[in-house]
């Protein structure tokens, strides 16, 4: 296990760096290094076992840190002050992409739970690549750029709330009760934090450990209540985002996450990629990827249109909201771990999501540039 982790970290760093050099997200490089170290390439050649309960545990920690960081970065105050346009665009994007996922499941003849699970994967946008492209084209400082950044933040929040409803286990009534308990504890904590913020509390290093511990305890609470771990980690981040020590907590979480745990999560995702899944992936992928992309383009363009954006600008918003990355991979691995998909399907959905991540981030810059070039004429 030790050697595997060492090699995985090195490979992830190298490929991540290489991908950043060619202006693609480092995450893709890290997933690819997982595929390389996994059971079908290096694993096969050198009899190396990357997938083990230990590496899965490390990946789990990575997920908690990633979502905790998201919550901290997004911040409650920022959500409260977001404009109507961002909200409309985010909601339309979420609804359309969720249902396009659901429809994929329906066409393929999967049952309700599976179809909803596919819908969940389609919801969360990751606009890093879009922002990079807009920066290159010198249009980040435009109404389009602003709307994309705002609604991308909101759609993570909405996506995770949907997830807590749809991934919950048990009958609707007990689930409803559990959700109430979770959100009540969220509100109580928020109130307490507000009170603490009034009293002078100064967090030395000791406090940073407490913050991370809090993320894990909240994740455990969410899991114990039958919601997903990631819901807990994300809301823990939101709760703590109101403290003045927010920047320090973000810095600390980024440090331990980025150096060690989060790359190991993406490596783990790559290592679980099963080449056998590719054999009869055809029809699924033909539906899966186009529907995921179309859902966001149509939904967000429509949202932008309602917010009085011109045709081309609205289209640019839709395309800009298309890429999926970290959160989609977190959601799919959570669902696979929950055994929502029966066996061959689990690997296919995993592979489909990895391909979706790659295709969407290759396609977004190209399409965005096309839209803007046409507009220039």
């Amino acid at each position, binding site marked *: 296990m030790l050697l595997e982790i060492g090699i995985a970290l090195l490979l992830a760093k190298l490929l*991540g760096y290489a991908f*950043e050099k060619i202006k693609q*997200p*480092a*995450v893709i490089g890290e997933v690819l290094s997982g595929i390389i170290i996994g059971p079908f390439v290096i694993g096969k050649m050198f009899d190396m076992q990357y997938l083990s309960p230990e590496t899965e545990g490390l990946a789990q920690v990575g997920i908690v840190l*990633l979502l905790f*960081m*998201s919550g901290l*970065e*997004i911040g409650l*105050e*920022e959500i409260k002050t977001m404009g109507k346009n961002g909200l409309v665009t985010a909601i339309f994007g979420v609804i359309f992409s969720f249902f396009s996922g659901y429809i994929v499941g329906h066409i393929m003849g999967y049952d309700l739970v599976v179809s909803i699970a596919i819908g969940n994967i389609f919801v969360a946008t*990751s*606009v*890093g690549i879009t*922002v*990079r492209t807009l*920066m290159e084209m*010198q249009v*980040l*400082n435009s109404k389009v*750029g602003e709307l994309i*950044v*705002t609604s*991308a*933040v909101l759609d993570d929040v909405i996506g995770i709330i949907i997830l807590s409803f749809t991934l919950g286990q048990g009958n609707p009534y007990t689930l409803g009760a559990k959700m109430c308990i979770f959100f009540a504890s969220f509100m109580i904590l928020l109130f307490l934090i507000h009170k603490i913020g009034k009293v*002078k509390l*100064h*967090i*030395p290093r000791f406090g940073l450990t407490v913050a991370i511990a809090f993320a894990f305890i909240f994740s455990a609470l969410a899991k114990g209540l039958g919601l997903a771990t990631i819901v807990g980690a994300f809301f823990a981040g939101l709760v703590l985002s*109101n*403290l*003045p*020590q*927010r*920047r*320090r907590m973000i810095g600390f979480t*980024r440090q331990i*996450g*980025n150096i060690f745990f*989060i790359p190991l999560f993406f490596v783990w995702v790559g290592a679980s990629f099963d080449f056998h899944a590719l054999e009869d992936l055809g029809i699924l992928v033909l539906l899966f990827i186009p529907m995921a992309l179309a859902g966001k383009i149509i939904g967000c363009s429509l949202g932008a249109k309602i917010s009085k954006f011109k045709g081309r600008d609205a289209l640019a918003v839709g395309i800009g909201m298309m890429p999926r990355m*970290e959160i989609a991979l977190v959601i799919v691995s959570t669902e696979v771990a929950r055994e929502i998909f029966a066996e061959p399907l689990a690997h296919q959905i995993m592979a489909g999501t990895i391909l979706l991540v790659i295709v969407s981030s290759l396609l977004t810059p190209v399409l965005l540039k096309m839209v803007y070039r046409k507009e220039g004429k």
Partner: protein
Amino acid sequence: MNLKELHEKKIKDLLDKIQILNLPLLEREANIEEVFSVLTSRDHVWITDEKNGKKLVGIITESDVLHSLAPQRLPKYVFSKRHGISLQHGTVKTAGDIMHKRLITCSPTDSVGEILRIMINSGLRRLPVIENEEIVGEVTIHHILQIVLGKR
């Protein structure tokens, strides 16, 4: 000066009129160029909610300016709104765009010992002194050194 004596001193004893008149203050809506011009000679500038107002809403330090001037580098994971803030890309216009919003503050009744602890624990080099939600002064390492040397 005896350090123990220094630690027990109250903040209100350190504040003087000249310092208060000299506070680097700008309002939230101030143009970014105004911020830069204050920072050519100061380490930081306190941001208030309105022109000539005293209600503190943020601070801009040298390091914030450094970040807004440097070529933008997006983080590997979890892009957030603040990463898109860059002078180069026109997303920085006013002081409010780059200021830190949640501030750690102290009050005139705190002792120097307490606020030195706060500064170390929070990695800060300056604290605003707040009374009735208004900024009434600041404590920086410069001020404390002046007192240590008996220049104040």
